[in-house]
């Protein structure tokens, strides 16, 4: 991993983009990092499909059919896949719907919820189908590394990325860097 820039792809599935914000929070070190990396598909580039990349960062869990498609595209194209943040790793806050049936959730939100007018459950073909549960990404595809936290602190991104950029196989990140909350 030397001559060409390391290609990184990122996405947010059922996430809040908080992990992406935390990644950007490495501030001026992003400039240094930028000399060594280039972004492929990412909310930062607006590239729509993931091309062959070295590292994929996945934020958010898997809540619908489109998340599954995107996640599989990342796995197929990224040599190293990293689950970033509580939602990717456990389903996180969106997974709180797992304690209810999907139909219950839809009816509560679109039929019986407070302030609902013209009650109907959306069924446009353009809308991705919701899964029965929100799943951690490692229940859908194999994942190489996990970066816990809600969100992981900015320097945790560097702690895992820099060794990978240097071609080290298994970055050891200091434990106390992580909190699950």
């Amino acid at each position: 991993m030397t001559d060409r820039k390391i290609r990184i792809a990122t996405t947010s599935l059922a996430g809040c983009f908080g992990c992406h914000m935390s990644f950007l929070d490495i501030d001026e070190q992003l400039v240094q990092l930028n000399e060594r990396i280039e972004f492929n598909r990412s909310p930062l580039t607006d590239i729509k499909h993931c091309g062959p990349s070295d590292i994929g960062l996945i934020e958010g869990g898997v809540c619908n059919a489109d998340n599954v498609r995107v996640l599989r595209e990342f796995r197929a194209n990224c040599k190293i896949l990293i689950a970033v943040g509580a939602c990717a790793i456990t389903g996180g806050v969106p997974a709180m719907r797992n304690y209810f049936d999907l139909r219950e959730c839809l009816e509560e939100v679109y039929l019986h919820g407070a302030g609902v007018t013209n009650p109907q459950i959306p069924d446009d073909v353009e809308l991705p189908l919701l899964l029965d549960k929100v799943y951690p990404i490692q229940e859908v595809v194999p994942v190489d590394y996990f970066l816990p936290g809600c969100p992981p602190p900015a320097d945790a991104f560097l702690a895992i990325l820099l060794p990978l950029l240097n071609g080290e196989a298994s970055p050891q990140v200091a434990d106390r860097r992580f909190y699950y909350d």
Partner: protein
Amino acid sequence: MTETKDMIFIDGKAIGFMEGQTIMDAALSAQVYIPHLCHYPGLTPSGNCRLCVVEADGRKVAACTTAAREGQQISNNTAELNAARKAITQMLFVEGNHICPSCEKSGNCKLQAMGYYLSMLEEHYPQFNPHRALDASHPDIFLDRGRCILCGLCVRASHDVDKKNVFAIAGRGADARLIVNTVSGKLGDSNLDVSDLAANICPVGAIMFKEHGYVTPIGERIYDRQQISDVALNEHVREERR
């Protein structure tokens, strides 16, 4: 400290013990940490979380329920045992509904702290997503069984210390669940009080006080500042009762 005659050896370190002490008792009196969740010094040990698994003279036993015996050679802080403990912790996580970012117990939670201590980065096993009843009938205390790890601390605290017998574990295996000993089964019909040990001893976010959310901000809580391996060395029921 009373005179000690007998010795056990934990990871090679000689530790004195008194007749009747368990391996856990002896370890804690010597300020040696053996990971545990369902044990709390001062309460009768129950040996149900299995995190305190140690190898005593070649056999894997629960340190909290195994008597210390003269000359015992005990392995505790080894890669193999810690890997087993991590797997147990991961199973506890997937078995319940443990969503740290939205839980008020976050930072004060021993299950979470155990995850930190054992460098647990992910849950590994598929989640159960159980549907378990929530009980908000008590004016000051609510019970979320989704976060209960069935450690039985509240059961023992209520029975042994508070003398109220508010809680019990019903069912076995996958059907095991925390129940309330009232005709209605509701916490609101019990005489549980916020000052009871049973209401304060829950290691996770299953028994929590109402109207006290985020009094201590995230980041300033017990396990935000200290490792569980340090905190656990100074815990005893008599401290809680002061």
